[in-house]
């Protein structure tokens, strides 16, 4: 026996892992030559399983695995022992009760029958099957019954889909119950059971048939594999196995719905409730003053179509004004259907003092267990209404009158024809002639003209700011000044004129330049080299004249030089 490894398993594994010993197989039908997996599970430590009594099978131990679970705050340990059984002959073979020794105490498992070499007849011999049941196959109209669909599978299944689920003649509602799968052992074989429940309320009397429910699913194909210490379930996951698509179906269910007996003569009339109900009434206080408000509650409790419970008659005596509230439900849907209570509240305001009896609230329903109508009622209340403290301040309470029906709307016709009166104010004499057209045109165009002026001014100002423009202006001014400059200032003015022209050409501002710089600037600004050279030479001459100890004073020379500079300036400023 291999030593099992210590694992903690999830609780999908058996509810059958409970106190004591259990034995189960993976199937109860097998072909000769095939094998059956036997698992013996027992709680506690120190276990020994005696398989010596198994005669019809060859027994191969596959080891054991320990499980630990927490139950009611206590740690419980169980050990599962795995065996492979190979049948030795055909027929109905039996795995006899196996003694299991646990802490010295011997317990025995239940026997298990295995069919070897035959087609499965019983459901337990099938790997997967489905069953459908109803809680009552002869309900009354309006009585709630529960339809339960169970899918049993002893092998791994996946992708189940219900193909048909149809309840003609019933009001249907799914019951969202505990969806945890259960474990059920049938003829020694353990099945996982997944179930779904539906509340059915028959709407009409007569025979009804609930058609078979068909479930399509995929069955994992079994592979011969050595069990691996409790990890079988892991490797039995569809992810690791191939699947065979198949369908299972339930048997049809016949339901004969009985009609309710005629509810004649009942007062109050039959409320429509079918099931088991009771009614009670509560009131906050039984002594009050005129104008005080008190809330009366009538609560209908029971199991059945409680949601259809109508408001009981709570009409108080005429000395009270009643203001009814919306009912409040505390209703649940469980495995047996709807149950709970519905509370009807109304505020009562007494308007005159006195002693009054609030009549009981009654309810007539059909008791399905007794199969007859029953009337239940609350107890009556006696209310004492005292006068208000201050008679003059007695509260006059008005019940809201019913809203009158909306008036029919008709088109408003003229009943007379006349004009509206004169305009008699003196404002009628104020001249309202529009702007004359010439004035309008003037006012319309004035802003445009103003804008034009502004634009021009801005343009000119910007132009003045432009370095090239400034230097050009300075050059021309210096040239003009050269005409009337005294001899000693003459070269300076010519220098200024030529240098300003060079700066204007290069779009910069400056005061002085060497002739080399001047040539370079002119060439960079696009002037041809020859002209630049000429301008540089001219500048050099002017500088020489400017800084000479005795500059030439001849008028002709000055005129000639001025003419040269003028031409050059014009050339540069072009």
């Amino acid at each position, binding site marked *: 026996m291999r030593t099992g490894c210590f694992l903690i398993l999830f609780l999908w594994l058996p509810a059958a892992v409970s106190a004591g010993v259990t034995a189960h197989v993976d199937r109860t039908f097998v072909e000769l030559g095939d094998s059956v997996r036997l698992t013996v599970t027992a709680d506690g430590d120190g276990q020994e399983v005696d398989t010596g009594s198994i005669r019809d099978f060859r027994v191969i131990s596959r080891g054991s695995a320990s499980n630990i679970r927490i139950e009611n705050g206590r740690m419980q340990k169980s050990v599962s022992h795995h065996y492979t059984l190979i049948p030795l002959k055909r027929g109905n073979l039996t795995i006899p009760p196996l003694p299991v020794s646990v802490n010295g105490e011997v317990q025995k498992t239940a026997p298990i029958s295995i069919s070897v070499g035959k087609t499965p007849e019983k459901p337990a011999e099938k790997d997967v099957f489905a069953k459908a049941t109803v809680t009552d196959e002869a309900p009354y109209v309006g009585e709630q019954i529960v339809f339960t669909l169970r899918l049993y599978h002893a092998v791994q299944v996946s992708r189940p889909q219900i193909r048909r689920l149809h309840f003609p003649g019933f009001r249907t509602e799914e019951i969202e119950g505990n969806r945890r799968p259960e474990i059920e052992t049938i003829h020694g074989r353990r099945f996982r059971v997944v179930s779904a429940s539906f509340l059915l309320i028959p709407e009409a009397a007569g025979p009804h048939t609930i058609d078979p429910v068909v479930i399509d699913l995929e069955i994992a194909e079994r592979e011969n594999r050595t069990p691996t210490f409790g990890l079988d379930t892991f490797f039995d996951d569809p992810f690791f196995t191939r699947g065979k698509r198949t369908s299972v179906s339930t048997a049809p269910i016949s339901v004969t719905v009985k009609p309710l007996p005629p509810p004649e003569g009942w007062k109050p009339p039959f409320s429509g409730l079918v099931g088991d109900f009771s009614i009670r009434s509560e009131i906050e206080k039984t002594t009050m003053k005129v104008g005080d408000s008190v809330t009366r509650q009538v609560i209908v409790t029971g199991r059945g179509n409680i949601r259809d419970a109508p408001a009981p008659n709570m009409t108080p005596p005429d000395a009270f004004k009643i203001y009814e509230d919306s009912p409040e439900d505390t209703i649940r849907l469980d495995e047996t259907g709807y149950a709970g209570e519905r509370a009807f509240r109304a505020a009562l305001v007494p308007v005159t003092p006195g002693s009054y009896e609030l009549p009981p609230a009654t309810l007539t329903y059909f008791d399905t267990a007794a199969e007859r109508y029953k009337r239940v009622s609350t107890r009556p209340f006696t209310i004492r209404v005292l006068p208000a403290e201050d008679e003059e301040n007695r509260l006059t309470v008005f019940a809201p009158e019913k809203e009158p029906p909306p008036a029919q709307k008709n088109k408003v016709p003229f009943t007379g024809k006349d*004009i509206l009166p004169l305009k008699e104010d003196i404002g*009628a004499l104020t001249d309202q002639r*529009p702007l004359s057209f010439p004035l309008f045109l003037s*006012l319309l165009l004035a802003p445009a003209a103003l804008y034009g002026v502004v634009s021009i001014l801005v343009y000119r100002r910007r132009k003045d700011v432009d370095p090239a423009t400034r230097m050009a202006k300075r050059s021309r001014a210096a040239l003009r000044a050269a005409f009337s400059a005294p001899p000693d200032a003459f070269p300076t003015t010519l220098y200024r004129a030529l240098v300003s022209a060079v700066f204007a050409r290069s779009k910069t501002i400056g005061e002085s330049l060497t002739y080399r710089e001047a040539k370079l600037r002119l060439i960079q600004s696009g002037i041809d080299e020859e002209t630049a050279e000429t301008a540089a030479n001219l500048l050099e001459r002017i500088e020489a004249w400017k800084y000479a100890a005795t500059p030439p004073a001849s008028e002709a020379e000055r005129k000639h030089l001025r003419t040269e500079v003028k031409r050059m300036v014009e050339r540069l400023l072009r």
Partner: protein
Amino acid sequence: MKRVGMEGLLFLILFSRASLFPVYAAGPADSAALEPTRMFLSAVTAYRNNDFRTAVKRFSALVKSGIQNGRLYYNLGCAHLKNGDLGRAVLWFERAKRLLPNDPELIFNLKYARSLTRDQREDGGASSVRRILFFWKYHLSPKTIRLAAVFFSAVYFLLLGFRRITNRRLHNALSHFILVFALLFSATAFINHYGAAFAGEGVILPESISVRSGLDDKTTELFVLHAGTKVTVQKETVSRETGRRFYRVMFSRDKIGWISAAAVGIIRGTGDVGSLN
């Protein structure tokens, strides 16, 4: 002689100077200014006393004095209507509507007066579309439209000028928005001014009048129009034979003909009949 001449000359000078400063007759200095008010109040009193003929006369006098006022035109329209002159009532109501396009009393009275006309209006579709598309033309007085055009134009160029001075981008969504309004109102003002000169609207004044194919009574009668009916006056001409003025009027697309100018009151004018020019 010389003295007399000198004294005479002095007298003449004094007299002439005196004559340059005429002396008013005795009475309040502002009595002339009160005349329209007195006239107006007496017209209102006559109307209240159901003397509608007198009310018409006095309101008309005020209009002829040069006052252009929508309320005055409305009052004149009311007086005409009460006096039994539907054509002129509609004419003056229409004139008032140009100056008071949204006045509820005017709209009511005009609608009432139109309900009394005998001729059913045709070709309402086109003018309805025009009224929807150019709704401001029919809901604002000509003065308001001109002022709006001036306003938006001023705002637009002010904005441009400001941006020009601050060296910012000239146009953006706001300037486009204002420009659109300026152009719209300016265009409408121009249309109002020039459009009326080419195709005025008029109102038929007499109880009934024949619209003919030519410029005299011998030509074929094409159709008959009645008092208060609105027509479009397309053209004015003068008959060579009689010297009378005629209008070519259009009642609907297929109803055009000639009519004596005296039978049509031009809405754009202020006279009793008015002129296209």
